[in-house]
């Protein structure tokens, strides 16, 4: 009988942070649209028009212009000011999901630091910095 090898803590930690942030973000992103449809008046945008505009092939700025009745897109972090509206909850779910690698690489980096593994600490911090700057609009990869 072979004994199962012990998996390093930072390996489990990295996966668990990614996993849990994704799960929480996903639950919010699943509930958000239902809240939007149940309470249509409590939304930032007109959710009933979203799909029609997307299917009409409109550009993002044109879509937001109609959804927000002539206003400009308020930026990806708009959920901060509009919770607990349905679309803000959905956006928070997406925001969390799309930043899960930041949380994971940063926390894993700290775990590597505690283990005095400076090489992987630096690598983790580099990844964290790239994601953080991308969230601020300073880094583009596509």
């Amino acid at each position, binding site marked *: 009988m072979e004994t199962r090898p012990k998996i390093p803590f*930072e390996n489990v930690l990295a996966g668990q942070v990614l996993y849990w942030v994704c799960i929480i*973000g*996903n639950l919010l992103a699943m509930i958000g649209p239902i809240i939007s*449809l149940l309470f249509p008046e409590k939304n930032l945008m007109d959710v009933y028009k979203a799909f029609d505009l997307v299917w009409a092939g409109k550009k993002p700025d044109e879509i937001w212009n109609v959804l927000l009745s002539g206003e400009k897109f308020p930026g990806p972090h708009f959920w901060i000011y509009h919770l607990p509206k349905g679309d803000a909850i959905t*956006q928070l779910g997406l925001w969390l999901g799309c930043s899960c690698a930041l949380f994971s690489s940063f926390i894993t980096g700290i775990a590597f630091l505690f283990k005095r593994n400076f090489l*992987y600490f630096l690598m983790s911090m580099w990844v964290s910095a790239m*994601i953080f700057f991308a969230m601020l609009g300073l880094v583009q990869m*596509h």
Partner: protein
Amino acid sequence: MGKSNQTQVLPWWQEAFKNWYKFPWIETFITCGVAIFAYIGWLFISKAVEAPPGAANSTFYISAWLSGFFFISLGIGFLGTLCGIGGGVLWSPIAMAFTPMNSVIIRGSGLIVAMFNGLVASGPLMKRGVGNVRLILFTLVAYGLGAFSGAQGAIYVAKVFGAGGEGVIRIILSIIVCIVGFYFIFGGAKLEYPEVKEEDKFTKFFKIPIPYYEESIGKVLNYKLHRGLLCWVVIFLVGLIGGFFGMGGGWAITPALNFIMGAPLKVAASASMTMLGMGDCIAVWPYFIEGAMIPLVVAPLMAGQVVGGILGAYVLIGMRAAFIRFLLIGVLFFTAFGLFTKGADLLGWFKTPLWIRLGFGLVCVGIVLALIKRGK
């Protein structure tokens, strides 16, 4: 999953039902339960929910689109997890071909479809050591540098090479991908668990390998890796090309890790999808900032990927490595065909009708099924 050779080993789904109140099954059941409520239950309830006066559509109409997007994404996420690729390679061509959606929205939603299956699957995979955080970071540094340089140089390169240059590069890539596909057919089982006799100094310095218990063969795999520097260069180039043309690198990372570094196929597939998911966390933000992520449209795509990724991860852990190789062969040929036809289109040679692309997709499915049958 099985606990030891002395206890009865149950299939993952039986163990899930037996231990539903324990981690990780409880959150799996909650996620699947909420998904069933949100995309099946709500669809029926929405028939009774009236839209506000003056609304452009009925609540049922919107809910039906939400459910449709979820189920498409679920299928892509499940398959993508088994192959170690992002679903963008399937979603983007389908969305471009079948829908009138704006290309920026398709590319943004394509990233969502490409990233979440890998990210969520990393939880169970890393806990068992199939996912390796050191290999992921090692790869991500090279890929990120390449993709970042590529994106910065994209405007310059577009001016110098133009559409013709992109076409030539796509055709060259299609040939390379096709060769890799054939190698995966004829390379056989030695590619599933490659044998590396000696690690080189550069690769050894990074101390990447993590031994893990391989469920499908009931053995501990204590693997070695080599040629890390060469793999870094190749992955940097993959990132660079992806950054130039916004193509993503799902087709190349698994073969590079398996083929060049000698990583077991399952470890390579797992590292590839997590690495791409983390890389896409960087790539996705410009689309967010531009407003290309319409929350109501993108949310069901994300949900499908997460649920598909969780289910796919548990299937992947117990799956035979040969099966992953067969799936990868199909994906590689489909990608090669897509790269070639797009390249030919950009060079003005010919345009490929949709039915031919779909037909070729079916041929790839046929190849995979034939290989599975032969493999048995």
